[in-house]
């Protein structure tokens, strides 16, 4: 079920109690907006024939950004999946890097244009390399946590994946391994209610993906995926548990995929416009802005400047990325194995 943010006539400050400053929540919002505006631009570029493919984050920015803020961005290891534009921005990737990724240029830090867009990976940021076969990243995240435990390092390993993907064997094996060894892993399922065309009820028969936690003997929780504060609180709590040695947590960000699966998809063949329109009412980017406006943190000026800043950055990045060179054709032969010299 799509949850909606509770709205009362008199909006109260919800972030202070979570230990977040006004600056924090503005920064959260800016990352969400960045992801949204970049995503929108990518669709335009795709429709204009400038990039062959888009995979979209729209509808999931709130959970992604909230989650990033709940982690230690200087220490923790993360394995974001292909929709995590909001997450990787909040984690330190620049818009320019993102555009290089989408234009598949040599300078793309994720894969130098080797992988499809959204297949993140950035060692400098302790961000694992993502591949296309879904859920393979889950055991990797567990391995990071295990390695940290062996080395005695106090870090958290964070991984995301879709609800359809939670049906892969690797989800199960990774969750169980982490639980048995009480490893500091946070599994966050971004339940957007669709796996391409297949709706939630044809993927799982449980109410929430987080219901699976009990079967692993770990803690589980579902939160409103449209609310970055809920995401922040849930991830923060899970990270605290991990640091205290209480093991892994399985979270579900309950949300909705606002766009087609990718630019190759036509979602109107399997869901209705009404359904999508209804979901848009709960769009986290919109509702969080409303909250910030209601509590006077997002003033008209701040908002205009923010939009402006982002637009300029996207323009410049797009321009840069479009002009940037592809990797040399011969480079396809490189880095199959370590190259010693």
């Amino acid at each position, binding site marked *: 079920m799509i949850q909606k943010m509770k709205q009362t006539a008199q909006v109260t400050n919800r972030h202070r109690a979570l230990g977040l400053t006004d600056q924090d929540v503005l920064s959260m919002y800016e990352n969400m907006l960045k992801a949204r505006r970049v995503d929108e631009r990518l669709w335009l570029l795709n429709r204009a024939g400038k990039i*062959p*493919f888009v995979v979209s984050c729209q509808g999931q920015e709130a959970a992604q950004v909230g989650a990033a803020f709940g982690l230690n961005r200087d220490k923790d290891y993360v394995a974001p999946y292909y929709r995590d534009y909001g997450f990787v921005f909040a984690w330190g990737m620049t818009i320019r890097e993102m555009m290089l990724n989408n234009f*598949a*240029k040599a300078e793309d830090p994720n*894969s130098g*244009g*080797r*992988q*499809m*867009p959204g*297949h993140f990976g950035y060692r400098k940021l302790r961000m694992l390399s993502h*591949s*296309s*076969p*879904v859920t393979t990243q889950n055991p990797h995240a567990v391995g990071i946590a295990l390695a940290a435990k062996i080395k005695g390092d106090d870090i958290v390993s964070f991984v995301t994946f*879709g609800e*359809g*993907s939670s*049906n*892969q*064997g*690797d989800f199960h094996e990774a969750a169980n391994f982490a639980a048995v060894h009480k490893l500091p892993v946070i599994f966050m399922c971004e339940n957007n209610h669709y*796996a*391409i*065309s*297949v709706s939630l009820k*044809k*993927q*799982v028969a449980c109410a929430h993906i987080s219901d699976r936690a009990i079967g692993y003997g770990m803690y589980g929780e579902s939160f409103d995926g449209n609310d970055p504060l809920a995401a922040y609180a849930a991830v923060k709590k899970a990270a605290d548990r991990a640091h205290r040695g209480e093991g892994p947590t399985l979270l579900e960000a309950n949300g909705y995929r606002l766009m087609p699966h990718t630019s*190759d*998809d036509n979602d109107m*063949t*399997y869901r209705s416009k009404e359904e999508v329109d209804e979901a848009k009412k709960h769009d986290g980017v919109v509702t969080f802005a409303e909250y910030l406006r209601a509590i006077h943190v997002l003033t008209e000026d701040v908002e205009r400047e923010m939009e402006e800043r982002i637009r300029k950055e996207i323009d410049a990045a797009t321009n840069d990325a479009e002009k940037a060179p*592809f*990797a040399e*054709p*011969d*480079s*396809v*032969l490189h880095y*199959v194995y370590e190259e010693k010299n």
Partner: protein
Amino acid sequence: MSVRSYIEAITMALDEEMDRDQNVFVLGEDVGKRGGVFQATKGLYEKYGELRVMDTPLAESAIAGVGIGASLYGLRPVAEMQFSDFMLPAANQIISEAAKMRYRSNNDWSAPLTIRAPFGGGVHGGLYHSQSMEAIFANIPGLKIVIPSTPYDAKGLLKASIRDNDPVLFFEHKRAYRLLKGEVPETDYVVPLGKADVKREGTDVTVITYGLMVHHVLNAAQRLAEQGISTHVLDLRTIYPLDKESIISAAQKTGKVLLVTEDTKEGSVLSEVAAIIAENCLFELDAPIKRVAAPDAPAMPYAGPLEQAFMVKPEQIEQAIQDLAEF
């Protein structure tokens, strides 16, 4: 008879077999309402209902394993793997289970399951939507692996695969889906499994290949004919177990053999073809057995120029035939 695309031929075969035999059903990711991400099952959901055109959870090992189970009950499941790259979670079910079911039960049980999977590159698919996966499975007794190169063969081979009483991996070239068109009879026909097919008769150089490469090779042969080079083209069609006789006689035909695959070179299906020739008709060769294949790197990158650099190009094939002719 009408002109159909390769993917239309696939859909026709599915439709005809489902119509003909109530035991045939389709399962996979997005095969239902969506008609498959490539539209191979288009219209079948509407026609046969959701029980026989079943959207499964996102879990390939279950798709293969549940398919095997249903086949044991007497059904003829056609499982779709959305991309052949994503078959690997099902490798254990395919190799340990489907392939060994008849043998391990001493002929008591069998698993008449067909697994369809789009493979191959040239579609901006990047590393994980472009691979040729056949070599991984082309060493597993109990499996049959089929790769059609034309719409006609696609329909006939798929129908034969579905009717076969053993498991068949059926790889469809995703670039061929809409690129290749040809005459496809509306009638019920099958193309036998296990038989290679001479796609062009020739006398100077023999090319042995399969999949979309057949198309490139035939084009090259056409161009080379104008220069007076006569190319003999054998399309393997079933790439495991191989049709040894046809391979040997094709090699003997010209004494000069070029093998072409878009898969990476080392350990590809062509290695076995070379081994068969080297074991059986070595002294009838007038030239080394040459291979044209992708480089030994994991898979083709996404960026356009890198993809191009990685792929086997028609000119490469043409050049290799020419070199052999002049050898």
